[in-house]
């Protein structure tokens, strides 16, 4: 995260690290993967009790948004979760809470926010299509006369969420709805993912009819709400990747210092040292970009849109590149199922490809730059 944190943020960072290391270390993700099991609902409730989703929920609805620095604090949490390849549904619930807190009616806020903050309610964010170029642009779903159809792809937490935050295109623009996942016409098809332990799904909407109470904000809005949600989702994804790199790099440094070959620690071999120096430089750039993006998103700065895409470009590319080389530096042991590294690399590859590949973000940056 940023190089200057407030006292509260430092406390948040330390508390989260301690909690995740003790209660939800990477072995939890390994166990879920081995058992091919979903992240247990009651475990999420324990996590939510740490106040992670509550960062976006106003106090009258059981949250602490008043004291928090929203996206920045959430990014601090996401980074810590990345360090242990945490499998639980943080981003999906955080984005939903953020959306409802910002655009929801009083009734919606009262109905959903307390449950999201406490973790008893879980949400998923449905917006993208199902193809190879999906993940960044909304509008895979269409809506007219409060009835919508289509398939949303790559939905994190899609199979476990009770609540769906759905973005659909109508005649004028984008409309958003909050509907229960067991609504008639909704079907969920779980996906197998490279990112073991974390659940993704395709969610299909077959002429799903909703009443006006489900509408979040205005109908056919110009998409500003969606864009802000996307920015938050990207900040959390990138911060998580920072955590992945941070931890993988940490134990790689430890490994090359302790492991000996030819009578020397392998970390004294110049070829390894130079690669590690290069990774340090790229990683520093990634950290700079994510810290900047988190602040820009929190403050709704005019460059928030471009900032998140810059962060995604660097984290997407370097997350995979650095962790892949960490595996290489571990020698054969890094390729065994027993070693944790592949969980880090799997998550990094997934994060590279989901919510827009780096190349897609480059196109987005060009458009934002007026090309």
């Amino acid at each position, binding site marked *: 995260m940023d190089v200057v944190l407030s006292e509260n943020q430092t406390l948040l960072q330390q508390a989260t690290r301690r909690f995740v290391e003790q209660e939800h270390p990477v072995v939890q993700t390994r166990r879920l993967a081995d058992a091919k099991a979903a992240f247990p609902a009651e475990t999420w409730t324990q996590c939510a009790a740490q106040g992670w989703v509550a960062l976006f929920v106003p106090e009258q609805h059981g949250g602490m948004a008043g004291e928090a620095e929203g996206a920045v604090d959430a990014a601090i949490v996401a980074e810590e979760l990345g360090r242990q390849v945490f499998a639980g549904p943080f981003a999906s619930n955080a984005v939903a809470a953020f959306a409802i807190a910002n655009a929801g009616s009083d009734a919606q806020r009262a109905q959903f926010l307390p449950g999201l903050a406490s973790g008893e309610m879980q949400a998923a964010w449905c917006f993208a299509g199902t193809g190879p170029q999906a993940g960044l642009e909304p509008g895979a779903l269409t809506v007219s006369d409060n009835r919508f159809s289509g398939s949303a792809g790559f939905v994190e937490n899609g199979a476990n969420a009770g609540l769906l935050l759905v973005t659909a295109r109508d005649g004028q623009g984008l409309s958003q709805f909050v509907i229960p996942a067991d609504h008639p016409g909704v079907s969920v098809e779980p996906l197998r993912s490279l990112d073991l332990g974390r659940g993704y799904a395709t969610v299909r909407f077959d002429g799903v009819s909703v009443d006006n109470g489900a509408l979040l904000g205005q109908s056919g809005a110009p998409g500003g709400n969606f864009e802000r949600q996307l920015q938050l989702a990207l900040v959390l994804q990138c911060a998580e990747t920072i955590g992945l790199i941070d931890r993988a790099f940490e134990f790689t440094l430890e490994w090359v210092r302790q492991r000996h070959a030819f009578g020397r620690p392998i970390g004294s071999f110049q070829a390894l040292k130079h690669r590690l120096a290069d990774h340090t430089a790229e990683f520093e750039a990634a950290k700079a970009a994510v810290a900047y993006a988190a602040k820009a998103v929190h403050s709704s700065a005019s460059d928030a849109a471009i900032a998140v895409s810059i962060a995604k470009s660097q984290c997407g590319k370097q997350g995979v590149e650095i962790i892949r080389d960490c595996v*290489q530096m571990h020698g054969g042991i890094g*390729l065994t199922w027993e070693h944790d590294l592949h969980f880090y690399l799997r998550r990094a590859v997934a994060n590279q490809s989901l919510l827009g590949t780096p190349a897609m973000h480059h196109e987005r940056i060009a458009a934002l730059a007026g090309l």
Partner: protein
Amino acid sequence: MTLATCEDRDTDELRAFRLKAREWMAGRLPPRIPGQPYMDWTDKELVAADRRTQRILWDGGLAGITVPKEYGGLGLTRQHETVFGEEAAPYRLAWHLGNNYNIVQPVLLAHGTEEQKHKYIPRMLNGDHIWAQMTSEPSGGSDLFGLITRAEKRGDKWYINGSKIWTTGGEDSDMGLCLARTDPTLPKHQGLTMFMVEMHQPGMTVRPLTLVNGTQDFCQEFLDDVEASEDNIVGEINGGWAVATTQLAAERSATSRGWYIGVGASLPRERIEIASHPVKLAHELGLAETQRARQIVGEVIALEALRELVAQRASKGIDAGTLPPTTGGVASLASSTLNQRASELMTELAGPCGVTGPADGGEPEQGMDRVWLFRIGGGSAEMLRNTISERHLGLPREPGPGKDVPFNQLRTNAAS
């Protein structure tokens, strides 16, 4: 290259051998199935089938073509071997027994006693024994001769303690070559002895290693007072380094001439083979008209073709003597690098479709390629770069601890 032209070059003797081989194998040997892996130790039935195949060859007088007759072989020439490979092209041979003919036979022929050769070679040729090479150690990484597995003599037996890892087919092997340290007060490359050990015996625990993609081709062995008699020593006591050098040379030679007998007979290709997988993926994903997707497909095709071209060039140049044998390693490194770039591009092409898939399918392919990628596994890419820079390019070695330092004064992973 067609069979007809090959036959045209045969002498009468070679022609007779060719016809004998052709006749015996027809209908007896399993056909070669396109796409079937050459080696897959998780497929126990395939391993058993390979033992049977070897037995069929033995029964037909086709096993151990260049091995001297006194050890059960045929005592024939390399040319006979080439002819055999050409005739065997339609069949699956005993490829799980590759260590037998690629590694252990040359090692025993060079360093074994008469007794050892008579005892072990026939059982390699008739499919009774599958041999393993126990080369790496968990503590050792790339530093093969820094091994710490030790053997001590108590009474008239040797007892081996330690651990070996990355043993291909360890669980299914009957015998293994095992280098152990017999005198730690000598410098690193001295004080080593080569043992032949029975893989199924008390004290030997063999555990398959599961890799990140779920495969189990490699094993780790834990040796707890594993027994070996004096007869099980290949070469001199504390002279294991010389035996291991033969072993490594055999491995390099087999790798560059083709590990799997008969597989190479159809090479080299006469035309560039256009990789179909990127084209197929672009079509499946509906990206055939997208500029960037087309660039990616084209680059992947180029990269795959380059891997083939560089391998062909190296083998042709080494055969012709116009390229040094170290070019084999150069081609391996090239192949690894080109493959890595191709895998990056395929992940980009597939986007989110590369990291997810139907719940009932396997691991998402493109993303998994990025996780799994290790044609030259682990630290060996670094070793290969050292070798290329020092032996192929002739660059100076790095200064290191003197060659004469006693092993027990060096820092190792066990000691630290």
